[in-house]
């Protein structure tokens, strides 16, 4: 079974027409990979479907805007994947 990172990287590569090899666990989805907000919603839809979750994008955006978190906390690939794993675990708990 593919890891969360492999699955998410594959989704981003396909959705955003990026070379898969350019996506690493340290990549920032917006700052490094250049994914704009419209494409990120496509990515979010594909992730939600693939993992059977609802990523709380509105809450994350509010956290960043209000200084409770940085965009790195949610949009660096390894952190994004950790957040997805937590949502999947919460769903199956």
């Amino acid at each position, binding site marked *: 079974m593919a890891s969360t990172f492999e699955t998410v990287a594959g989704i981003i590569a396909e959705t955003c027409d990026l070379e898969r090899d350019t996506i690493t666990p340290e990549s920032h989805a917006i700052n490094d990979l250049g994914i704009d907000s*419209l494409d990120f*919603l*496509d990515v*979010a*839809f594909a992730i*939600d*479907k693939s993992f059977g979750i*609802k*990523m*709380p*994008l*509105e*809450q994350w*955006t509010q956290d960043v805007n209000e200084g409770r978190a940085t965009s790195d906390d949610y949009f660096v690939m390894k952190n994004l994947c950790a957040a997805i794993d937590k949502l999947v675990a919460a769903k199956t708990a």
Partner: protein
Amino acid sequence: MQLEYFQMVDRITLLDPDARIARADCLVPDASPIFEGHFPGYPLLPGVLMIETMAQIGGWLVLATLRFAAMPFLIHVKEAKMRSVVLPGQKLEAEARLIHDGSGFAVVEASITSGGKKVADTEIRYRVVPFPNETLRGQMLETARRIAVPEAFFHAQQP
């Protein structure tokens, strides 16, 4: 339908947020300034207005699902197909099914049929954001009443 005012939905005939489906009747007018340009001597409902019709029935479904707490704005039309021409005076039925209620976005599959035959279909995505002002929210509620959206969907559900 009043094409020049972007009033595409005449009457909601089914709205069931739990079942994630909405349907509406839409009657193409016999005359409209739109037909003077599209096309002279051969009036047809423009394909972009078929897409707008599907976006609106999906939008009403999203609005009802959210009890009018936020507004869906069209951001993505995926693989729209206009399968046959639509003429002045033609009766249409628009249908939308909510396939994903995301955080800050929504996705519907929508179609238009006429006389039991599908004339257009697409997948539509919306960004869902707080109403930018009370004027827009008030206008949406007024339109909702005009097209027979049940009042039960206007406000948050009581616990």
